[in-house]
């Protein structure tokens, strides 16, 4: 599945999108940690289909996934 990266997260990864394989949120988090340096030390949230999720839900692979650093609007 394709993962969109933004702001500081994209800067650390060196790209603004990644392709990973994951069938649950936990697998997704593990895959992202392998691909994005220092992700564990960076404040971030994961959005699935444009809503932030915190659980370990299953993923079909068709979702729109995004990794979001802290917001700075205004």
């Amino acid at each position, binding site marked *: 599945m394709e993962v969109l990266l933004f702001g500081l997260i994209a800067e650390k990864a060196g790209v603004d999108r990644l392709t990973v394989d994951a069938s649950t949120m936990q697998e997704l988090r593990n895959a992202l940690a392998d691909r994005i340096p220092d992700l564990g030390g960076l404040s971030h949230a994961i959005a699935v289909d444009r809503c932030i999720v915190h659980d370990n839900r299953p993923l079909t692979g068709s979702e729109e996934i995004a990794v979001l650093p802290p*917001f700075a609007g205004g």
Partner: protein
Amino acid sequence: MSSEKTHKVKDIFVEGSIDPAFIATSITKHATRTDIGAHEIFLGQVRSDIIDGSNVVAIEYTAYRDMALERMTAIREGAFAQWPSMTCLHVHHSLGNVQAGELCFMVFASAPHRVAAREAVAWVVDRIKAELPIFGREVLSDATHVWKTNA
């Protein structure tokens, strides 16, 4: 709440800073709405904070546009639900480069009376800052940068 006020997904984003002349024009456009008795406008301006001895000279804004517009639509609906007398609500936020001293954010509410407009603007500004996935790269005078984070 009338659906025509809320149901459309409006694009709030503008490239670069918000021109004060645009805001003046926006005010002028309300002259025909003689049921309005109060306008409340919040304007955000890029502040030249000093970070580790360097000044912020600009902020480069990016956004997760689709999610931001979905969240904004929900916030707009929430505002009209809480302040149903509100006549209209206009929101604009910059993307790209905005220099220190330039405007980057506008929330403009109009209502028959001042309390609804005032309360709605304060609520909408706080919700946008907390919920919209907008990111700000603060460019410093020594050519380094830091990433802005809303408290």
